[in-house]
């Protein structure tokens, strides 16, 4: 037997006992060549191209799932930022693209389609402004479309006009989807340093530096890492880091295998494996619980940032040995609503928005799936976004904000988004206003870190 029974059972147990899965196979598709002054023609061409390239995506992924016995939870598509395609059109009705994407996603049977996006870190074109304007209606009247807007980079600084605009957009999107507790906001991300090859939603888009089409993989596995940490309750930090590296190596190898095989079957190049440790609302599949298994009474208390730094770094070290192409976000995710341990930590009073902000300095991706009271002022949301963008800009990393001001809800209430999006306790926002600051207008200059040439 080329493998020991222990090895074989370890693999099977990862799936059966510890929620190991491939979170997503995401196909990136370039649709820039579908641009046309006639908006209907552009939408039709894009729809045909996506359907042609992704025709066999679902079947192929299902076959891989059965062949290797590893669940693949989501099948997704990311397209070129729609603002780049739409601005050639003479019409202002960009919603046609949103409806087209939603229809394509439903027809292909995939879970999400990302790329209703704009990159405005330095300034905004007319087309980008129109796209952002259309986001609230686009997200509240479609099911599978995800939007993202990049408002900052280390090289360009922070576009504060766009930050304020995005805060208004988030409020509008929440209002328009108030019958579903502001669900539209769960499909909208504001980014600093957005990666072009991210397979994870809501922020996936197919960057302009990418090939015609590409397969990107997002792995999961907090449950597997937690089980490994629990096996070593008393060891020192080096031993702990070593064990996390081993586990990260193994789970990333599966991502690499699935990526290569899907790519082979579809004859589309394999892009990257994203090393992010993505939690799910299932009990035991929680990043917060890993930190607690390391020895914290509760995630969010003193020591949390250090524990997360160890975890994130060890996952990257192990994972980077396992794949020939790492990319995307590649860092532990700390979405509140999608992680049962984070939810408990908030309810126990251990975890606040401010502590989450500190944690985003040492991991991916940012303030993710945070529900706040519906009456949170636009300026406060802009302030929260600006803080997070500053962390990304200064530290040369991707950061993001996915915040849901839930209409009619107060601190302590719960909201239910369903599925992978989970449920969230409404978190408190500090009542002190940044209104004068965020309404100054203009652009925060690029930091000294940008001057690397």
């Amino acid at each position, binding site marked *: *037997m080329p493998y020991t*029974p222990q090895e074989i*059972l370890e*693999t*099977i147990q990862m799936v059966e006992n510890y929620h190991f899965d491939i979170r997503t196979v995401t196909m990136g598709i370039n649709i820039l060549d579908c641009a046309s002054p006639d908006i209907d023609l552009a939408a039709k061409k894009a729809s045909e191209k996506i359907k042609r390239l992704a025709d066999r995506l679902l079947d192929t992924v299902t076959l891989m799932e059965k062949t290797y016995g590893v669940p693949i939870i989501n099948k997704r598509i990311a397209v070129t930022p729609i603002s780049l395609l739409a601005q050639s059109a003479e019409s202002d009705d960009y919603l046609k693209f949103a409806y087209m994407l939603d229809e394509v996603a439903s027809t292909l049977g995939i879970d999400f389609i990302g790329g209703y996006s704009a990159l405005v870190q330095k300034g905004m074109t007319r087309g980008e402004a129109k796209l952002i304007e259309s986001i609230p209606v686009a997200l509240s009247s479609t099911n599978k479309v995800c939007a993202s807007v990049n408002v900052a980079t280390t090289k360009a600084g922070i576009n504060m006009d766009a930050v304020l605009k995005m805060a208004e957009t988030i409020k509008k999107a929440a209002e328009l989807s108030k019958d579903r507790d502001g669900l539209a906001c769960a499909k909208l991300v504001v980014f600093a340093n957005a990666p072009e090859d991210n397979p994870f939603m809501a922020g996936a888009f197919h960057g302009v530096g990418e090939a015609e089409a590409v397969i990107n993989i997002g792995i999961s596995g907090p449950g597997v890492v937690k089980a490994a940490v629990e096996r070593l309750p008393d060891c020192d930090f080096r031993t702990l880091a070593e064990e996390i590296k081993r586990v990260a190596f*193994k789970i990333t190898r599966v991502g690499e*295998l699935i990526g290569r095989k899907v790519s082979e079957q579809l004859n589309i190049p394999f892009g990257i494996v994203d090393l992010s440790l993505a939690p799910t609302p299932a009990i035991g599949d929680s990043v917060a619980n890993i930190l607690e298994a390391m020895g914290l009474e509760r995630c969010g208390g003193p020591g949390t940032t250090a524990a997360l730094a160890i975890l994130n770094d060890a996952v990257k070290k192990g994972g980077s040995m396992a794949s020939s192409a790492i990319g995307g976000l590649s860092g532990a995710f700390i979405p509140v609503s999608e992680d049962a341990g984070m939810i408990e930590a908030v309810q126990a009073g251990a975890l606040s928005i401010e502590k989450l902000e500190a944690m985003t300095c040492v991991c991916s991706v940012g303030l993710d799936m945070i529900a706040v009271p519906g009456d949170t002022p636009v300026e406060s949301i802009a302030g929260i976004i600006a803080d997070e963008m500053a962390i990304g800009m200064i530290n040369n990393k991707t950061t993001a904000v996915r915040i849901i001001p839930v209409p009619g809800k107060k601190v302590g209430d719960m909201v239910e988004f369903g599925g992978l999006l989970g449920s969230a306790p409404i978190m408190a926002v500090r009542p002190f206003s940044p209104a004068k600051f965020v309404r100054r207008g203009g652009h925060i200059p690029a930091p000294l870190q940008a001057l690397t040439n």
Partner: protein
Amino acid sequence: MKEKEHVVITVMGQDRVGIVAAVSQALAQYNANIIDISQTILQDIFAMILLVDISSATKNLVELKEILAETGKQLGVNIVVQHEDIFRYMHRI
């Protein structure tokens, strides 16, 4: 000669008379060739692991998976069928 295609079949559950017979009969019926077989008790679970070449089999991996799932149900054991590659990727550098 066709390229070898190896799958790993893992049978887990309560040990009882006839497991090996039932599984190997199902495999023989579809011309799947057992290359290696081992039995062990791990963490109180009975586990039988078979390495099987299905390159000349009359059913593909997905079909065999369904057939063996049925066999497993009748025996009261859990049967997992996976392509060998997942173990090679995960456990061999």
